[in-house]
């Protein structure tokens, strides 16, 4: 092999390395994009889905409910009672710990294929399908009792409101607003009860 042939072989080997490196880079790019996509769907503090992921999920589920007669979809809005005073009295670090624990409780009370999301601050949303309203209410009551028990020292409870598609309509904004309004009704009742005490 003369020097000229060696040079040619070297350049061919270089091109082979170049191709392999670019393929590796492309794979890395794909992995990175998948990771970014994943990150864009989750709330960094609690690890639950974020608001955007929940809305995207709701859009698909509402379409499914519209197509399949008899299907019901429960849109649940939850808000912690007295959470503000945890932040005020014990600091945001403690507040974050409470939010993480509540997130875990939500995950364990609902099924893997139900969508549990942090909507913002101390607000959470859950989208449940293939359940009866009675079953959903039972789960929520159990969850409420568990939260009150765990966070007794902080006097934290949870208020919630449920909207049902298609009974309450199939417009996402309206369903969320309705669940939010019903959650407030419960919150008002909790406040009144606390004042009576």
């Amino acid at each position, binding site marked *: *092999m003369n*020097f000229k042939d*060696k*040079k040619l*072989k*070297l*350049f061919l*080997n*270089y091109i*082979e*390395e*170049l191709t392999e*490196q*670019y393929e590796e*880079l492309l794979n890395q790019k794909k992995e990175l994009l998948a990771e970014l996509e994943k990150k864009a769907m989750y709330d960094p503090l609690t690890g639950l889905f974020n608001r955007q992921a929940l809305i995207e999920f709701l859009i698909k589920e509402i379409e499914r409910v519209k197509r399949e007669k008899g299907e019901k979809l429960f849109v649940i809005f939850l808000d912690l009672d007295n959470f503000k005073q945890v932040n005020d009295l014990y600091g945001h670090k403690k507040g974050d710990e409470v939010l993480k624990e509540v997130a875990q409780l939500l995950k364990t009370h609902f099924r893997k294929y139900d969508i549990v999301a942090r909507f913002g601050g101390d607000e959470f949303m859950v989208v449940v399908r293939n359940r009866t309203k009675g079953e959903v209410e039972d789960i929520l009551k159990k969850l409420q009792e568990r939260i009150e028990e765990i966070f007794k020292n902080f006097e934290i409870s949870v208020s919630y409101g449920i909207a049902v598609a298609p009974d309450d309509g199939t417009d996402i904004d309206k369903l969320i607003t309705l669940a939010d309004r019903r959650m407030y009704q419960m919150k008002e009742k909790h406040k009144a009860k606390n004042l009576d005490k």
Partner: protein
Amino acid sequence: MDTVIVGSQNPILRFAVRELKEKAPKGFDFALFSISPSYPHQDVPATIKKEFGSINYVGFSSSSAFANIKVINDGIVGCFFKFSSPKTKVCTYVRENVSRENRRDVIKEMEEFLSKREDKLNVVIADFIDGEFPILIEELGKEFQRRGTGVPLIGGIIATPIVGNERQKGYLFYNGNVVEDCFIVISFSNLDFQFQISSGVFKKGPIYTVTKTDTFKIYELNGKPAGYLPRKLLKDIEPSNDNQFLLWYTPFGIVNEGNEIEALRLIRSFTDDYIELWGPVKEGERLKLSIVLSTELMKDAEKTAKNLKESFGMADFCFNFSCIAREKILEQFEEKEIELYGRLLNAPLFGFFTHGEVAKKNGKLRIHNLTSVIAAVRERYEL
């Protein structure tokens, strides 16, 4: 400024120096001598003194040097300067016995010398000093950047023969002495000058991150043992002594955040565990593996010389420090590059093939491999 550059390949040092003396201009102010390591280095100062008498000069070992448009191998080249203005002066700073132990002191001394010479042309000629000189330049460059100073410094590491992977020691001849483990900075005042750096490597290529290194040796690239890469590049090429030169065709470029090449590095040797380079690299630096062709080197050299001519205009003289790898890669066009510089810049040219070039690129002073530093110089005349 009148500059005369002459060479001789007479194998007897005394006759070679005498030939130069005969062609040198009368009453020159300063001389640079490139002297082949094939001559007995210990006889150089006495021979110069015998032939020229007491003159102001700096000499250095170099396997080859440029005398205008000719490459003089295994000979001696003299570059004689006769200045027109009494304001034009040459000041030198010689540092010998450079070692890792006195690195900090040497950098400080260099900084002090150069900080007063921001408006002067500073030319450094150095031995490799077992890798100490490239480290000095990299450290000095960082220091300049930290201080925001723009001292012009160009030059090269003298190329001496390499036997196996061992590089023969180079010497400087100064003040009647032979000095080793050394470098010299020659500072010319009252000169206008501009310099450019030409490379000609392909700008695309795979990029690796240096994850483990020991100055000149890369142990890991992208977290993998580095030795795999040269082996892969030389796959199915039968082992031979010239394979180390073959890898000069695939240099590494140290790239910045914008993936632009800041400095080139050539592979010196490799084992399964590491790749040894001719210049230092740091952990975390990103290297682009590139390729180089003789035609591209020539194209870039032409573009560089044209740019220099356009921005500088008429030159009295040119310095050229060109990597020894260019000599190998240019093959039969070895002399074409300096011919091209001579033709385009239309001035006498002196320089030599190097084991590392010194120049600023993108505002950073660094040690380079595989480049050609070309400087156009003109004496300031009084009206």
